[in-house]
């Protein structure tokens, strides 16, 4: 059932992004030729267009592309001179460390801060956490990233200024610790932004719970605020936190494009920018589809988790 949904979503995204590419001013032949454009005669261009099937109608072209897609062939990226699937595979491996790290950090930290703030409503701690959350919620990712590079990399020199490893070093020579060192700042920047919304939503749910009949009855049984927050609060607050954490996967992906750009981190985000700037149509389409798959799977996991957390949702499911 859910898989059908997923494939319909993927098909729609494929259709829309393909349509956008068709109407965009990008000419794949110009992009392919690059600077050699001037040396090619109109007849030769015609030949390339014919060879690539550009003389056919958009529907037929879409059909071609889709057939190859189903067969697992995403096309050839001329920017990286590699198959698109290989580019996405390599880039994603690097990005997942950044995205996953930031995501896990923001979900766990955001949730804990929200629970603490909500349980101790009105306290000093609560005020500090909320102020922090409001400030970071209104901070743009790239700006924070630039500030972080200036402070920690340039002024203090604690972290490297760019890339996933030392400049010039081969990928297989980079040690795990060095990799972590290079990841530190991008992950922290990206996580810092994700924390805010999860904190604020978790806190709101906690406030509602601490005033609910459930909490008052728990107090009547002699429970302390900590007891109520721990036993009832965690369960109730995890629902909005899970929703947000998984719904923010897309946002995180968008944020990673900016952050990867600022930190010159060679991940999927940077590949997206390169593909866009240098008109690499197959790569752009491939990334669009891959992102859709990634976010949709995230939402599917969230849907399944709801049932685990709240039995009422499990019952309502058909």
């Amino acid at each position, binding site marked *: 059932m859910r898989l059908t949904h997923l494939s319909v979503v993927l098909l729609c995204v494929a259709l829309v992004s393909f349509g956008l590419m068709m109407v965009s001013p990008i000419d794949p032949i110009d992009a392919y030729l690059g600077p050699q454009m001037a040396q090619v005669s109109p007849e030769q261009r015609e030949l390339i267009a014919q060879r690539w099937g550009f003389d056919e109608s958009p529907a037929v072209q879409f059909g071609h592309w889709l057939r190859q897609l189903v067969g697992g062939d995403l096309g050839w990226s001329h920017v990286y001179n590699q198959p698109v699937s290989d580019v996405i595979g390599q880039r994603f491996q690097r990005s997942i460390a950044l995205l996953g790290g930031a995501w896990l950090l923001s979900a766990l930290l955001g949730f804990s801060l929200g629970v603490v703030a909500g349980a101790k409503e009105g306290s000093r701690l609560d005020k500090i956490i909320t102020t922090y959350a409001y400030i970071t919620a209104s901070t743009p990712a790239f700006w924070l990233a630039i500030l972080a590079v200036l402070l920690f990399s340039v002024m203090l020199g604690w972290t490297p200024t760019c890339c996933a490893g030392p400049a010039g070093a081969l990928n297989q020579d980079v040690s795990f610790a060095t990799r972590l060192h290079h990841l530190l700042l991008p992950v922290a920047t990206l996580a810092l932004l994700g924390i805010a919304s999860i904190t604020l939503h978790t806190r709101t749910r906690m406030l509602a719970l601490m005033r609910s009949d459930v909490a008052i*009855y728990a107090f*009547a049984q002699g429970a302390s605020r900590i007891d109520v927050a721990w036993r*009832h609060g965690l369960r109730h607050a995890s629902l909005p936190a899970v929703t947000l954490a998984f719904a923010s996967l897309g946002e995180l992906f968008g944020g990673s494009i900016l952050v990867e750009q600022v930190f010159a981190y060679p991940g999927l985000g940077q590949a997206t920018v390169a593909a866009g700037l240098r008109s690499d149509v197959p790569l752009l389409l491939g990334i669009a589809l891959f992102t859709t798959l990634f976010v949709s799977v995230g939402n599917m996991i969230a849907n399944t988790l709801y049932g685990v957390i709240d039995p009422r949702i499990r019952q309502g499911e058909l």
Partner: protein
Amino acid sequence: MLTIDQLSLQLPYYAHGHASWWKRKWATCLDELSLQFSAGEVHAVVGASGAGKSLLAYAIMGLLPPAARLSGQLNYHEKPLDEQRQRQLRGRELALIPQSLSALDPLVRTHRQVTWAAQRAGHSSANAWLSALQALHHYQLDARAQQAYAHELSGGMARRVLTAMAHVSQAKLVIADEPTVGLDPHQRQRVLAALRGLADQGKTIILITHDLRHALPIADHVTIMREGKQVETAPAGAFQGTGSSLNSAYSQALWLALPDNNFATTTADALKREATVA
């Protein structure tokens, strides 16, 4: 064991209307109540909704919102029952059976919730699990009900779960807030009998209800409340015949208005009187 002396409660509210919405005003919700509850008795507190019955329960438990203004004296076992002592005794000596079924956590299985109640009452974890099981069995909740979530329970079962949670705490004073609302006659009898049973074990039961008829068979004393005031406190036996041994007109009217007493209403009587005068 519990005496209440001149207890008054005021709650803040913001008046509607122009130029006054920012002014805090105080509504008197309980007005100089003086009551005595002794061990082994069921004391029914009867009144229409809005009479302040549940607020009385909250005042005894110490669960009022921080803005509430409370005056008067609460004494539990001859010692003042202040906020700190309420906090110590809640769940251990004082227990509440809440009115609303939403007091059950919808995300937690029944058995676990009762276990938590036992732990909060001071049982060790292993012991709490067992005594919760016993309490659930005592109220005829089978293995399925024990593993069920709140929304899977019927109203009657949920009530029994709440009663089991009060039972497991071994509290000496149990305040049951409208424990029979929404129950069929058979279930109602079961809950009331359970409360009477607790009283016969030497506990004090405060039975809050709007239904005098159901409270009378198990109650020793009845306090009638109206708009935050204590109208009358009488032995349950005083509610019989024409109610002539009752002191106040309101309690008499309430007693006579019961279906078994021909639904006599004061307004109808007054109309009849006016008719004869004319």
